[in-house]
């Protein structure tokens, strides 16, 4: 199919349908500026719109590919399975659907790997799996990854992307915030490096736990980062919130971030920081 054909579709086709066609095909339309890119080119550009610089969401596999040295990633704890502690109707079924859709066992991919030849442990949350929400398995996988990094005395790097704690597991989800925190405290106490990179979206219990306590807290441009939901706040304060409210740029301005890192500089920046924390590397 040629580019011309895609755009010569008659107007009568519904807009939603049209967008689906573009996404499914060789072309990609930017959800922000509507600019159309060849999907392959967008991929080469790390899924960043070449026109408006919007950083599109990427899945955990793509993130690993962009961040680690090729072929160095070994995933951990893919066998852990979500159960239904509160007996919520349909919960496990919904998880099963996302397992089939994403090929992951839960909303985070963890493992060991290398950045420019230096070993690290990495966790990448995946917002395509139940919005990246954290239940027992996500908490457990992150905790095990942190413990692995502590054991190996290597840096722990996390890319967060999550709407928060997973409601269907109730207080157990909430307590995963504490569980990951005790592991990070030990990792830090033993002098190890922890880097948190917040990507779109990082909210609620994720933002209020491990995402915000890196030795370095970074974010991707325009990522939504915040504790409470925008609508909840609007209802509480009864005032119009600024357009950039709870974006990475807003957080940077208010002193809540070390740096905003564009995707095309991410690997290099992480590599430099890891190097600067390696004894005898300089």
């Amino acid at each position, binding site marked *: 199919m040629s580019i011309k054909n895609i755009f010569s579709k008659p107007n009568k086709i519904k807009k939603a349908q049209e967008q689906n066609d573009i996404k499914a095909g060789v072309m990609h339309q930017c959800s922000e500026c509507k600019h159309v890119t060849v999907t392959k080119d967008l991929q080469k550009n790390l899924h960043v719109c070449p026109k408006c610089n919007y950083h599109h969401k990427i899945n955990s596999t793509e993130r690993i590919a962009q961040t680690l040295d090729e072929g160095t990633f070994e995933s951990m704890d893919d066998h852990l399975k979500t159960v239904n502690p509160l007996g919520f109707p349909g919960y496990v079924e919904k998880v099963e659907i996302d397992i089939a859709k994403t090929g992951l066992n839960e909303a985070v991919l963890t493992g060991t790997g290398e950045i420019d030849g230096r070993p690290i442990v990495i966790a990448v949350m995946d917002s395509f799996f139940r919005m990246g929400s954290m239940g027992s398995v996500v908490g457990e996988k992150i905790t095990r990854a942190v413990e692995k990094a502590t054991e190996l005395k290597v840096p722990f790097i996390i890319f967060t992307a999550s709407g928060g704690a997973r409601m269907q597991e*109730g207080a157990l989800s*909430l307590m995963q915030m504490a569980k990951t925190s005790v592991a990070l405290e030990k990792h830090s106490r033993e002098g190890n490096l922890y880097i948190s990179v917040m990507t779109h979206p990082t909210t609620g219990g994720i933002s209020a736990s491990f995402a915000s306590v890196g030795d370095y807290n970074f974010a991707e441009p325009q990522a939504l980062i915040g504790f409470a*939901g925008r609508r909840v706040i609007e209802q509480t304060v009864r005032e119009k919130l600024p357009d950039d409210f709870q974006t990475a740029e807003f957080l940077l301005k208010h002193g809540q971030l070390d740096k905003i890192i564009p995707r095309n500089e991410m690997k290099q920046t992480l590599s430099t920081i890891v190097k600067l924390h390696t004894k005898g590397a300089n």
Partner: protein
Amino acid sequence: MEQILPFEKPLIELRAKIDELNSVTTEANIDFSEEIAHLETKLAKLQDEIYSNLEAWDRVQIARHQQRPTSLDYIHAIFDEFIELHGDRNYGDDEALIGGIASIDGQAVTIVGHQRGKATKENIRRNFGMPHPEGYRKALRLMKQAEKFNRPVICFVDTKGAYPGKAAEERGQSEAIARNLVEMAGLTVPVISIVIGEGGSGGALGISVANQIYMLENSTFSVISPEGAASILWKDASLAKTAAEAMRITAPNLKESEVIDDVIQEIPGGAHKNQDEQAVYVAAAIRKGLAELNQLSKDELVEQRYAKFRKIGSFA
């Protein structure tokens, strides 16, 4: 005026009947003593029946009762020599999360706790017990001070949640809570957290990374309010009652799933019926917890806390 809870209606009606008979007895000089005695027995039985079969939603109502004892009520009832300490040394003083030093049985302790008001005016001053970042940072400052002087920390948890506001976001609500979780994990002194009312999500957890977590029998601890859960799950906040049951947010539920260590018994009808009597039970729990934790070394305290939270979760 006393706030009446829906499940107590039959008790109140029966009590009114008894009172009426009593007044008739005195005014008209007719002897109803037999009937009264009968009704009193019936009332005692009914009370026992209702109070020992509380549903999750009933407990939510008790946990939210306006007259339910607050952190300061327990502090004054249980501890000696309490001195409140203010401010986070950075931005301001948050009256929704208070703290200070005191003693119990001669042992110095640091106390922090969410503080709501019982009447509207105080509630406004206390922001309905919903802290801003400076509240969590004040709590952390006092906990680190406790660590320096090697004294235990007692936390009273009683909040709908950390405040969802613009200023709170600007000043780093997320970071303030997250920092507390990590710092509390490493404290080398005993930490006991007691949920006395509502334990609302991250805002409650921000002072709950303790060696021991206790909950009053009619308190709740949840990832989201029953109303919030109902509106997300079923797009209908009026199903909060169903959500309260399904989310397993009560003290007995959470003891069963090993999220908390112990349930503190409440006096019949709930803590608000008699604050001083209730404080006796809370004091006993604190004494028991301190006696246990005072035996542990600094390393053991950190390890015990690690092990305690490390094992929480349900998966295959």
